[in-house]
């Protein structure tokens, strides 16, 4: 997994609540058996005026000029600013894959759906929960300042605003450690093979029908 330590990134505001994973990456792209290449189809139905199918050259498709990601001032954005319950709906990890492949490294919202939130950390994406009033203030600042960037420091757990304000954010220690070091969980878990085997033996004794 890609490490995440520090980012000084351009912010794009996506001003709607309950953005679901069907919107982030529509179902037809889930037919892929790969985990890369989803970026051009992130937010496909909002981003393009035609119907997208896997395998198209997206650079030749008509883009929707009203969709915020298509505006020239937000090209190259790495920080996605969003509203409540971002990433609700399906467990498809294709959603964080698409956002990461598009170029995002950080998503800031007042709240996230649980499965999506968890999936982000497995893919070098940092989802940050901030109070709704701070998110609101960021929306206003981004919209009124072209080229608005935020400095995100995972080690310090801070977001620095251009005006010098700094917001602290929470991140759980295990996830922070994995993200800072680019570690994937499987290797870490397999350090505890002995514990898993011991548990399994005890569990088998207590509920033998699970192993019949």
């Amino acid at each position, binding site marked *: 997994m890609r490490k995440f330590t520090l980012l000084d990134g351009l912010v794009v505001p996506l*001003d*709607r*609540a*309950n953005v*679901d994973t*069907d*919107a982030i990456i*529509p*179902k*037809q792209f*889930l*037919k*892929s*058996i*790969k*985990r890369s290449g989803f970026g051009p189809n992130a937010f496909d*139905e909002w981003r393009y005026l035609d*119907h997208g199918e*896997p*395998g198209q050259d997206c650079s030749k498709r008509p883009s929707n000029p009203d969709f915020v990601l298509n505006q020239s001032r937000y090209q190259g954005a790495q920080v996605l600013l969003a*509203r*409540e*319950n971002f990433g*609700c*709906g*399906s*467990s*498809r*990890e294709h959603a*964080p894959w698409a956002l990461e492949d598009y170029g995002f490294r950080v998503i800031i919202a007042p*709240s*996230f*759906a*649980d*499965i999506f939130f*968890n*999936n982000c950390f*497995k*893919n070098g994406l940092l989802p940050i929960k901030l109070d709704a009033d701070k998110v609101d203030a960021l929306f206003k600042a981004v919209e009124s300042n072209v080229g608005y960037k935020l400095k995100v420091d995972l080690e310090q757990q801070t977001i620095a605003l251009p005006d010098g304000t700094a917001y602290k954010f929470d991140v*759980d*220690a*295990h996830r922070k450690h994995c993200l800072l070091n680019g570690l*994937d*969980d*499987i290797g870490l*878990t*397999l350090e*505890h093979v002995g*514990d*898993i085997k011991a*548990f*399994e033996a005890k*569990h088998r004794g*207590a*509920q*033998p*029908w*699970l*192993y*019949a």
Partner: protein
Amino acid sequence: MSAQTLYDKLWNSHVVRQEADGTALIYIDRQLVHEVTSPQAFEGLKLAHRKPWRTASMLATPDHNVPTKNLGGGIKDPISRLQVETLDANCAEFGIVEFKRGDARQGVVHVMGPEQGATLPGMTVVCGDSHTSTHGAFAALAHGIGTSEVEHVMATQCLVAKKSKAMLIKVEGVLGRGVTAKDIALAVIGRMGTAGGTGYAIEFAGSAIRGLSMEGRMTLCNMAIEAGARAGMIAADDTTFAYIKGRPYAPQGDNWDKAVAYWKTLHSDEGAAFDAVVELDATIIRPQVTWGTSPEMVTDIDGSVPDPASAPDAVKRGDWERALAYMGLTANTPMTEIKIDKVFIGSCTNGRIEDMRAAAAVAKGKKVAANVKLAMVVPGSGLVKAQAEQEGLDKIFVEAGFEWRDPGCSMCLAMNDDRLEPGERCASTSNRNFEGRQGQGGRTHLVSPEMAAAAAIAGHFVDVSKL
């Protein structure tokens, strides 16, 4: 020991180890696998030269992508076909039991698992699909996971997790005529919002829940995720045991008696503490219909499309306005005046035999309205299909003008050919009414099977409690 919730019992009995910050390694008893969220996990295993820890804990079936017509004819879409063939090849390579297309046991993974007795009380159950919450109906701890976690569980039989908060949703009283588990689910979501359960594991309890069949309990737990909760669960009781007994993967002989003795302990203790409690009166729940693009945008069948001017705040007002524009609806329109173009009866929410029976009872002797272009019934599995045919339900549907299809996820998410065209309006027994969910530009109204069948006959939404 102090009083424990059902969630405490399920969690505590699966902790392999726990870190100081609460991050735990949780042992997983059952992993269900389908074609969409597994190929990258299998690839990851192979790249790392790892093998599944316990293949006997896994059960696979293709569902999301499979066509629901022309069962013997293969899959035309080459990308879909490759994904299904990749599942077949991975299961063959690692020795994982798979019910392939054409096998009567194939079906929507959350219909197939319980039907096989592969979901048992006390288990931890995961699958790369958010509707894994369905299996909580059996007093199991069940939730959806991402593909990285699918690979993690394959490789280690464990999941890295932190315990959620516990919520009790208590529904007391007797449901009214024409009111179903689906309506309880939608009424709960309408009240709590789609983020109301975020961070929680929900236990559904109360006399209305105890009165539900296993099919109804699965419908309710299935939609816990639509309330934001990864897991929903219901205490085990005689209804649970009766459903499981005799199924292929159910315990046999001595093991059955031992298992039932243990399963009887799988309920919240008297006085157990929950982080949140929500109480609902079952007697006032009416048949529900969604009007917007989120399951929380829902109202009673007697209700109307809401006016964004009455939204509680500016963000919600914007969401409601966008939803009405997308849905092609005008504020204050009575729900019963909304005409539909298509009907979908099926999915992991409502694709079980009881759902087929309920829809058939409404459709019997009637005809699908002329303005309805397509009304399709998609059984949740080959076994549901066979059972329904044995009961003559297929004939009732076909005579009424419904199409009777082969099992799969179908138009719940429209990954196969079953989809809405832009602007088409659908009465659907599925679980999500997101923009584009059933096809780009498609407009979804979530309802129960009874309500969907009644809408097919009338050509618009009607109150099934008055039929």
